[in-house]
């Protein structure tokens, strides 16, 4: 008999007034009892609607059935069949628009906590599982992966599992991409990401950090070195600015700089050498995950007041619901329908105020969302000393500008065949944010997976 409890089994969390002063993980994870209880809410639907909402097709009811029976390792092995970074996805997937949005339990009450269960199973495996990291015998073919974000790592893992000799070239000093430099510790502990990367290495994937492809080596040279195919997973790391007056004042930062200092460089720890951004009264501009992460990081760095300025309405915010909820609990002040028009500085060129204008919702635009329009004369000034611009990122231009014959669109996204992830260059494949523009971890992984299959077919076809 399934558990007909309408709400999800609550997730234990650090109390808001405690966690807003530390970088430890906010959500503490289910106990075995909680996980079993939540698993029993699943109806094991025959037609598995939830699976169609998952970009990598995790066998959701199957793994959940094992959780209900206390067979956690079996559950893990099922998830692992289609998802190579489950501990990450269980934490950061926007489940409310993916798997959980399709769950029938959501029709009356809350959907099954699929993400929470996925996280539980992965964490359980990390603690108790015995990883028999079997190195597949080499098939003698070499593939180069550029960028060690979720798309590149997934592509690398899948190819290694097929016997390819895979080398991942990463520009930064650590692998992980946004998982390491963007998403904060309190949402995705870096130790977990590192474990996933170590597991890949144990499978024989070689990771070379400090390698900026396009500068130290070009794609043509990778082919000369004997790599038979190249995968581009360089992400969307180029920060967009608003192009309003005052963005060059001291005290204005891109969210990438703000977050990179804290996450990648660990500026929040006293024994690390990178200075953190000085914060007191902060305005974060934007309404996505990046904005939520910046706002909550600012609180943890000791800011007295943190405002989020978003030009549309709350319902239109692209951030995960859970993160918005957490941010509110922690004391982030939300200013909806508010758009900055300029940043004002003092006589030393330091940020002093941000001038905003109030907006109202007008006609729907191309994306179907009602377009915000200015209310004339509604300008007001907010006193702040730090402005973090989190209005989005575009694909990294470096590869594009150094690779001959690699087609990109007007937004800078690498153009691929959507099924095979093939680019305009023979033997070169691409996926993730470099192709789609800033999207999600799981979509980047899905793309990496598809590319791995195409690369396999390409190399096997060539060598017939």
């Amino acid at each position, binding site marked *: 008999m399934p558990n007909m409890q309408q709400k999800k089994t609550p997730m234990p969390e650090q109390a808001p007034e405690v966690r807003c002063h530390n970088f430890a993980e906010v959500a503490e994870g289910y106990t075995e009892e909680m996980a079993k209880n939540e698993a029993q809410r699943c109806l094991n639907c025959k037609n598995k609607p939830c699976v169609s909402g998952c970009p990598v097709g995790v066998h959701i009811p199957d793994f959940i059935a094992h959780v209900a029976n206390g067979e956690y390792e079996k559950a893990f092995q099922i998830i692992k069949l289609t998802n190579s970074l489950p501990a990450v996805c269980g934490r950061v997937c926007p489940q409310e628009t993916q798997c959980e949005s399709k769950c029938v339990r959501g029709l009356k009450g809350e959907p099954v906590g699929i993400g929470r269960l996925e996280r539980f199973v992965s964490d359980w495996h990390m603690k108790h599982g015995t990883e028999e990291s079997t190195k597949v015998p080499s098939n003698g073919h070499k593939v180069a992966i550029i960028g060690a974000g979720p798309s590149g790592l997934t592509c690398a893992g899948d190819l290694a599992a097929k016997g390819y000799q895979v080398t991942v070239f990463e*520009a*930064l*000093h650590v692998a992980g991409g946004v998982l390491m*430099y963007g998403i904060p510790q309190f949402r995705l502990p870096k130790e977990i990401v590192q474990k996933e990367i170590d597991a890949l290495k144990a499978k024989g994937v070689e990771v070379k*950090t*400090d*390698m*900026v492809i396009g*500068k*130290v*080596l070009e794609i043509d040279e990778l082919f000369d070195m004997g790599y038979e195919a190249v995968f581009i997973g360089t992400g969307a*790391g*180029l*920060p967009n*600015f608003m*192009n309003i007056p005052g*963005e*060059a*004042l*001291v*005290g204005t*930062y*891109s969210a*990438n*700089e703000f977050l*990179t*200092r804290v996450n*990648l*460089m*660990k500026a929040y720890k006293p*024994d*690390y*050498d*990178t*200075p*953190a951004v*000085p914060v007191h009264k902060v305005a974060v501009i934007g309404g996505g995950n990046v904005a939520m992460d910046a706002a909550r990081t600012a609180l943890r760095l000791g800011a007295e007041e943190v405002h989020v300025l978003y030009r549309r309405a709350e319902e239109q915010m692209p951030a995960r619901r859970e993160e918005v909820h957490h941010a509110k609990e922690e004391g982030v002040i939300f200013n909806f329908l508010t758009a900055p028009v300029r940043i004002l500085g003092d006589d*030393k*060129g*330091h940020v002093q105020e941000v001038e905003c204008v109030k907006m109202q919702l007008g006609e729907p635009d191309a994306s179907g969302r009602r377009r915000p329009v200015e209310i004339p004369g509604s300008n007001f000034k907010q006193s702040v000393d730090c402005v973090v611009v989190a209005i989005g990122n575009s694909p*990294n*231009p*470096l590869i594009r500008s150094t690779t001959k014959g690699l087609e990109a669109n007007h937004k800078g996204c690498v153009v691929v065949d959507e099924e095979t992830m093939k680019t305009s260059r023979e033997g070169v494949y691409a996926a993730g944010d470099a192709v789609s523009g800033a999207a999600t971890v799981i979509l980047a992984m899905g793309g990496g997976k598809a590319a791995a299959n195409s690369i396999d077919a390409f190399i096997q076809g060539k060598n017939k």
Partner: protein
Amino acid sequence: MFQIVGKRKLNDSMTLMVVEAPFIAKKAKPGQFIILRVDEHGERIPLTIADYDRKTGTITIIYQVVGKTTMKLDQLQEGDALLDFVGPLGKPSELEGYHRAAVIGGGAGCAIAWPQAKALHQMGTKVDMIAGFRNKDIIILEDEMRAACDNLYLMTDDGSNGHKGFVTSALEENINNGAGYDLVVAIGPLVMMRAVVGVTKPKNIKTIVSMNPIMIDGTGMCGGCRLTVGGKTKFACVDGPDFDGFEVDFDETIRRSHTYYDEERRMAREEKCKLMEGAKNA
């Protein structure tokens, strides 16, 4: 890890280091830089590629000890290794097609100006190098600079080497004497570069400056290195570090370079104490 295969003190605060980095040495061009990290707790700092040797696979850097990271770097000796060393970053300098150039270096900036002078000189451009230092005791790379140009003008702020004055006074004098420069390259403190542009702009002599804003990744990801050039936002790490001196907003860049000043000073003080403790206990 990247092995240090050579280290030489140039003066009290400046050191030359040769580092094994074969991939970078293969590709490096004048005007490009590397980013290094000393150890696991270290920050990422950019340093210009002062020289490279494609055969031995080494890169030469020259740094001035100014704060915590350069202090830590200076603790390392030949045989030690750097944790991270990434490059070659930035665009190579575009130096082709000039007849007569003045290459100006200010203090530590001479380390960066020297390879530019060398590159120009090798291409057949007639090069005057103007190097400025506070006093004669801290003059560095005199022989190297002399070998990389046709005329070397060594200036000291206090006149202790017999040539008192700023680099701009030598530049103006040469121009007035009919040097006929079609290119000026200025590398050094921001205020020096601003002053050079103050001389060359009215005379419309093309001036390249090498900008050194605060960087983290060096790949165009953080936006920390942004500066305004000709009214547009540029990222020094990928669009530069060389820019048209007439177009750069120096005042803004000077302000932004002080963003982390308080924290940097605090860390430098602590590091100094630690080093002094260490010396006492040794």
